[in-house]
Structure formats: C-alpha cells, structure tokens
C-alpha cells in the first residue's frame, strides 16, 4: 500500500481550470465544502461539475463563477429553498445545464465504474431531460429482446472529490455502521480516475483492517487523502455533526446580491489561507463542537 496522506492544497494541486470534477455528498450531507472553498481560493475556473444532489458545493462554485457546465440530478438548498447563486448564473446563461434523473445519473456513474461508454435505462422516454440532450442520451433496441432502451453516456470525470467519515493514511475510507446512506459516494469513488478524499479523521490502518466490510472507498482507488475535520461545514457529516443552520441562513442572506456573496466568499473562501483559518473564522473548534452529535457505539 502507498501512503497517500497529504495536505488539502497538495491534494487539489493537480486540478486545473477546465477540468471535469465529480463532487460527492448529497443535500446537506458530506458536501466536500472545505475542498470547494480551497478550489475557489486557488482560482480554479471553467469547471464541468458532475454531482448527485448538490447544495453548497455547486452553489459556492457557481457564486465564484467557476462552473462552465453542470451535470446532476438536483441543485438546491434542500430545506432552505433554491440554490441562489447557481440559479442566478443559470438564468444569466453563464452555466450550461445538463439535467439527469436519478436512474440516469446512477447509470452514468456505474458505466464509468465498469469502464463502459454507456449503460441503458428505461426512464426518460418523452422527457425533455433526454430530448434536449441528444449528445448524452440515445435510443436503441436491446440486441436480445428488441425492447426499446435509452443509452446514457458514462460519467467520466478528470477528478473526483468526496468528503468521507474516517480513513487511514493509505486512503481506505470507512463509513460508520449507523449512517445516512442517501448518496452515491461509493459509486462515484468507483467511477473515478483521480480521487481526492477528505475525511473527518485519520485512523490507524490496524483499525481499518479489522472491519474491511466497512470500507466503501478502497485506498487502491485513492490518489490523495486529507484529514479535514468539519470538512463539510456548513452542512453536516452524518454521525459527526449536524448542519449549521445559522451559517446556512447567513449564506442565503449574503446570496441575495452578487456583492453580498462576493464578500462572503472573500471572507470564508479566499482570505482564509487554510481550512484551519476557516474554522477559526466561523468561531473555532469550540463553536463548531456545538453542532456535534452523539456518535453511535458503532461509529
């Protein structure tokens, strides 16, 4: 096994403007926000992003003008409404949008995970999701049954960024036994070419290898792993801490104007030189500890 434990900036170093980046997490859970803020600080632009149900990650990147094209199943703020900056950018024609329904996005990720150019679904016949995207959806007839199927293009990304629970220095990432599984991080990891994982905590390999069935991202697939406590803030990491509702409200408040969100990103993404600086900026570890949840016996 190779040691893959590096700093956040080292991990993100290879990502260039113009790349295609798959971003893990779902809704207000495990968005890799520390990494996203670092990308904004580093000035990365012109990204094609592939996501599941994205909230803060896509919205902050959109606010920073860093997204050229979006591909995903959802971009919003969950219980907090629509994604204000993503919405503004799309309405201004600044982001090219490719929508995918859940079975379509799952097929795309599985195809990439299997080294295939496409996989079929039976879902989107007659939907504008497919009709408006003939490049990535094509009808064909099953070679065996003759049934009409819809091929959807594999989701190959140059880089994949996932925020996980705990991992070891070799990049093996494990989930707790009691968790919220409403995401596709495992298949996004399996579909990756260059996989960067941030985790709440680095643990020993000895701890990992006693329960190999909990490893959902094998280190073999990982290019870099980074310890980033509260790395999903202001959203949650299930089993570790809840979403920071006050901060999210503030984010939405600042997002009402382009000037407001610019100032927000300056303060929280561009000026802090590191994630530690960010944590200090949002009140320090002590303040964030108020968001902590009781870890299950199994966590």
């Amino acid at each position, binding site marked *: 096994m190779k040691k893959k434990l590096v700093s956040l900036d080292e991990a993100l170093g290879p990502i260039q403007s113009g790349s295609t980046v798959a971003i893990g997490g*779902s809704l207000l859970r495990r968005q890799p926000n520390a990494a996203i803020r670092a990308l904004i600080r580093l000035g990365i632009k012109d990204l094609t992003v592939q996501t599941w149900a994205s909230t803060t990650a896509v919205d902050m990147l959109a606010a920073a003008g860093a997204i050229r094209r979006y591909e995903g199943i959802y971009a919003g703020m969950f*219980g907090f409404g629509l994604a204000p900056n993503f919405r503004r950018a799309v309405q201004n024609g600044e982001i090219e949008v490719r929508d995918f329904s859940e079975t379509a996005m799952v097929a795309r990720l599985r195809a990439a995970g299997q080294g295939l150019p496409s996989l079929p679904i039976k879902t989107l016949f007659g939907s504008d999701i497919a009709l408006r995207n003939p490049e990535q959806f094509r009808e064909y007839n099953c070679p065996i049954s003759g049934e009409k199927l819809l091929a959807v293009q594999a989701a190959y990304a140059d880089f994949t960024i996932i925020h996980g629970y705990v991992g070891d220095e070799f990049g093996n990432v494990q989930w707790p036994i009691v968790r919220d599984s409403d995401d596709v991080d495992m298949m996004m990891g399996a579909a990756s070419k260059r996989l960067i994982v941030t985790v709440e905590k680095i643990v020993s390999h000895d701890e990992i290898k006693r329960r190999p069935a909990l490893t959902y991202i094998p280190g073999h697939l990982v290019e870099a792993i980074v310890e980033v406590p509260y790395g999903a803030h202001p959203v949650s990491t299930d089993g570790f801490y809840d979403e920071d509702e006050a901060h999210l409200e503030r984010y939405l408040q600042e997002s009402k104007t382009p000037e407001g969100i610019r100032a927000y990103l300056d303060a929280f993404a561009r000026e802090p030189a590191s994630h530690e600086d960010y944590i200090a900026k949002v009140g320090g570890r002590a303040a964030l500890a108020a968001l902590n949840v009781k870890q299950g016996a199994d966590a």
Partner: protein
Amino acid sequence: MTAELDYTVNELVTALVASEIRDGDLAFVGVGTNGRAFTLAVGIPLVALRLAQMTHAPAASVYWGNLLEPDLSSIPDHLRQDSFTNWHAAASPADVGYKCDMLMRRQFDVSFDSGAQVDAYGNLNITALGDYTKPKVRLVGCLAQPEHFAFVPRPIIMTDLSQRTFVEKVDFVTSVGHARDGRTREDWGLGPGGPSIVVTDKAILDFNSPDRRMRIRSIHSGFTLDDVLGAMSFRPVVPDEIPQTPAPNAEQLRLIREKIDPRRVLLKV
C-alpha cells in the same frame, strides 16, 4: 375554509390520501424543501401513510431518503441530519442505486410528487420555467421524479391550485404524464403509470377521461366549481356530477391530531 367545518384542508386531504393507500403498498416519499412545499411533499404523505397503517393498511410502508420502511410510529420532530441518521428502519442500502433499481423494476406502488408546473395531461415540470437554456426561473432539476411517473403505478401529485401552476402545457417536461404533444406515454415508449390523482387545496383531480385529460374528481367542502376552474389556466374535464371530497371521520381526525402529528410538525402550514 369556512368556520363551521371541524377539520382543516390539510386534514381533509391527508385522510383522502390515506384512503388511496392499499395494504402492502410501498410508497416513495421525498425528503426535501420547506414551508408549504414541505407539508405537501413530505408532511401530508407521511401522516397519510401512518394513518393508513393505523387503520386499513397495516402492511403499507414507505421508502424515505434511503431508508426503506422507517418506523413511522416515531417520525422525528425536527428534521435535522441526525434525526435522519438515527431513524430506525428495516433497511438502508449502501447507496441510492438500490432505490433506483427498485424503481426501474417497478417495486413501488405509490409516489408523491409536486411541481412548479403541471399540465392538462399530467406532465410535470420541476426543472426550469421559460427557456431551458436561459430560463426565467431555474428550478431544482429532476431528482427521481421522472422515475416515479415512468415506473410507479399510482403517483399522487400534491400541489395547491393556481393558474401559474396548472398550465395547458408545461415549459419543460421533466416527468412524462399521460400524453405529450399528441403522443401517449405508450407512444413515447413508457410502460403503464403516470399520475393517478392530483391532490390540491380545493379539489381532487384525476385522469379518468377518454383522452386522459385532467378531470375534476371531487371538490372540497367550502369550494365551488368556479373556485376550482378559476385557479387553473386550462379547463379540465368537468363531469356533470361532481361529488364533494369525502370528509375525514372522527377516528381519522383523532389519530392525526393525537397520535401521528400532535405537535403539528408535519401538517404545520
């Protein structure tokens, strides 16, 4: 809602939705949104399913988030992350692919869907208003809603009546209903399905008409046909006789108020 009625419209439609649930049904309920949208998409469906479980459909169950058969006898009070994380359930598959597969192989019986636009043939739009490439309003995308309409036998649309929402033709067809551009869903290549009923704050509508155009099924007590038609941008099929939406009975109201949602968390607004 007039003063002499002893139940709210939310309670009325909750009881109505409960009556649509059959024993053994597996229902797909979404997780998101807030305010009134939350009540429609999550609150009413969860209360209705629990009500059905407690009355005529003990084996009805729900897939919520990625929790299969969460324990509806202990619906969390505040839906922060940790409430979801620790909600007891029969299963929580490794990822959402499992749920997607269950959808494609038609394992669900009922789903609940809301939209910014619904049209006369049950097409739904949750993607964009105006031009798709440079929309007037960019919405959330599509989630699994196209799957619901493609593979679930009885999707239930949950949307308050308004001229802005009920339009002859949606700007963008996220989810295909019963017909689009003169072609039926079967013409497009879809199997059986499409929305079964439309639950609104003034009436229940369905698609039981010869060409599957939306039809008024019943009107809630306190509202007139004109109230309903005035809140729609297209004219649905209007039968000669329109019954009143059945009122919830005392037992249903007692269960909703005392057992299922005593703190009005789910039927708040």
